[in-house]
């Protein structure tokens, strides 16, 4: 495994499975009276959020705290960033504070990659622009595996605003690595250019895709990123690409409905679908903490990245092949 987690594509199959298996063990902790492990005692994790995000930041914060790390939250409002400090200046500040891990959310695609070149600690991408959101993909894969027992050969349909969705991109890359068959469905205006190079199938007809899905993942319509007219009206979008009760009835019996949140109820997902037993929306949030704990543990729990150098890289890869004992 790399020192950083910037793209889901950085994860080899063994790395991804190691994260999911580790998360599986950590998930049990949620039932314990003492939800804390001493593992990251004395390590500092900085949550650096240049974009609003409540659930991702809280999820990372809970994960780091459950591992006993010191957590520093750094958000744009009230920081020097609002006064014009650049990402590089911020990076140098973090470096001076001795951050072992930086969780970065930024509106510019590629910001974590840049930051990784400036700091010694591990950089974890918590969403960059319309590029990637690898921990979301990991928690989605984790949720699918928990609910359906496998990932290999699973038919996953991702629906909606793929163009603006870092979740979709990370999911396609990760699920492909893990052997699932992904189909992206959306209006042509909301599918990115060069999508045919992605390792997935593409469709425009949701009704055709639904009966052939083990998992259906509804993406949020990202009004805040829409600076052009991508579809005639919300109502029309909802009719063609929203998941309502009638469409949900077409799903195979075992299929689950996912949504990365926050949901636009009544737009891409009907309220009755969001609250249905096969909807995993709430579960995804809980699983997010376990998966982020696994990522933080695997990146920061061993030899510190700055001293381990290449040994760290080789090492984690070594354990990746380890069978989890019965």
């Amino acid at each position, binding site marked *: 495994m790399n020192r950083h987690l910037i793209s889901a594509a950085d994860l080899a199959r063994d790395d991804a499975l*190691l994260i999911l*298996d*580790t998360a599986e*063990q*950590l998930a*049990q902790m949620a039932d*314990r*009276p*003492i939800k*804390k*492990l*001493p*593992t990251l005692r004395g390590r500092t994790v900085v949550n650096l959020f240049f974009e609003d995000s409540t659930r991702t930041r809280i999820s990372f914060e809970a994960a780091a705290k459950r*591992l006993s790390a010191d957590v520093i939250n750094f958000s744009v409002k009230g920081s020097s960033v609002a006064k014009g400090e650049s990402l590089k200046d911020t990076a140098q500040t973090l470096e001076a504070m001795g951050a072992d891990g930086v969780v970065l959310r930024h509106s510019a695609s590629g910001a974590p990659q840049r930051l990784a070149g400036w700091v010694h600690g591990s950089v974890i991408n918590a969403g960059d622009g319309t590029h990637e959101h690898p921990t979301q993909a990991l928690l989605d894969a984790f949720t699918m595996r928990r609910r359906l027992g496998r990932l290999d050969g699973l038919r996953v349909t991702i629906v909606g605003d793929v163009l603006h969705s870092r979740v979709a991109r990370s999911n396609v890359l990760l699920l492909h690595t893990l052997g699932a068959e992904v189909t992206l469905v959306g209006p042509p205006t909301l599918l990115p250019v060069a999508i045919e190079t992605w390792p997935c199938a593409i469709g425009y007809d949701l009704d055709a895709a639904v009966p052939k899905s083990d998992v259906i993942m509804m993406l949020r319509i990202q009004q805040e990123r829409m600076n052009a007219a991508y579809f005639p009206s919300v109502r029309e979008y909802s009719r063609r690409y929203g998941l309502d009760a009638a469409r949900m009835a077409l799903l195979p019996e075992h299929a689950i409905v996912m949504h990365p949140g926050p949901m636009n109820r009544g737009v891409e997902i009907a309220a009755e679908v969001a609250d249905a037993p096969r909807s995993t929306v709430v579960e995804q949030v809980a699983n997010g903490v376990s998966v982020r704990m696994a990522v933080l*543990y*695997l*990146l*920061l*729990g*061993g*030899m*510190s990245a700055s001293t*381990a150098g290449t*040994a*760290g890289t*080789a*090492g*984690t890869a*070594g*354990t*990746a*092949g*380890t*069978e*989890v*004992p*019965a």
Partner: protein
Amino acid sequence: MHAASGSPPSSGAEPAHAGRSAAQPAGTATDFAGQADFAGKADFAGKAVLEPADIGRALTRIAHEIIERTKGAGDVVLLGIPTRGVPLARRLAERIAQVEGHQVPYGSLDITMYRDDLRLRPARALGPTQVPPEGVDGRIVVLVDDVLYSGRTVRAALDALNDIGRPRAVQLAILVDRGHRELPIRADYVGKNLPTSQQEMVRVLLAETDGEDAVLLGDDDEHSQHSRPSMHSRHSPGGRP
């Protein structure tokens, strides 16, 4: 994952151990439990110090001792430390059930997150922690592992246990005690005391994890590698395969 059962010593967490050269290697085979390179007997030329029948007899005796010391094992919970402590805990539970006629709850307790040498090596995969539904509060917990060496695994296990509940008492059952303790820890039940030098390696094989039962003793042929802080000298040069 578990590693420290027999986990060597010196090497690790504390650089210069009194009376012992920090350079000493040491490593029991059991340390490799869970390591990717662990391949069983084939790559380890050791002589068998316990045969399958010996292991069976040792476990039967330990089971009887547990029953005796706990007056019937009525409130005992057996927790095996992964990897090989887990099947040993199950076997002890079966033997106690045969004698006493009641089931003894058993499970597993992973100690990876509580190790004192986490920072010396890259993060490793976790083992399972399965606490029986009865819990541990107010009960006598018997920790079970294959090899007792430095005592560091057991220290970590006590910490892990502390986060799960408050047992009335904690005891330790071990298949092989090879000496060289680095902490004030002792076993309550010992299958075999095996005097070893730190240049030797002890490897426990169990049918459930390795396809056969055996305890092997051999030389650590890489003990010339002084500098490395790894406990797993022989099998993971550089700390890793």
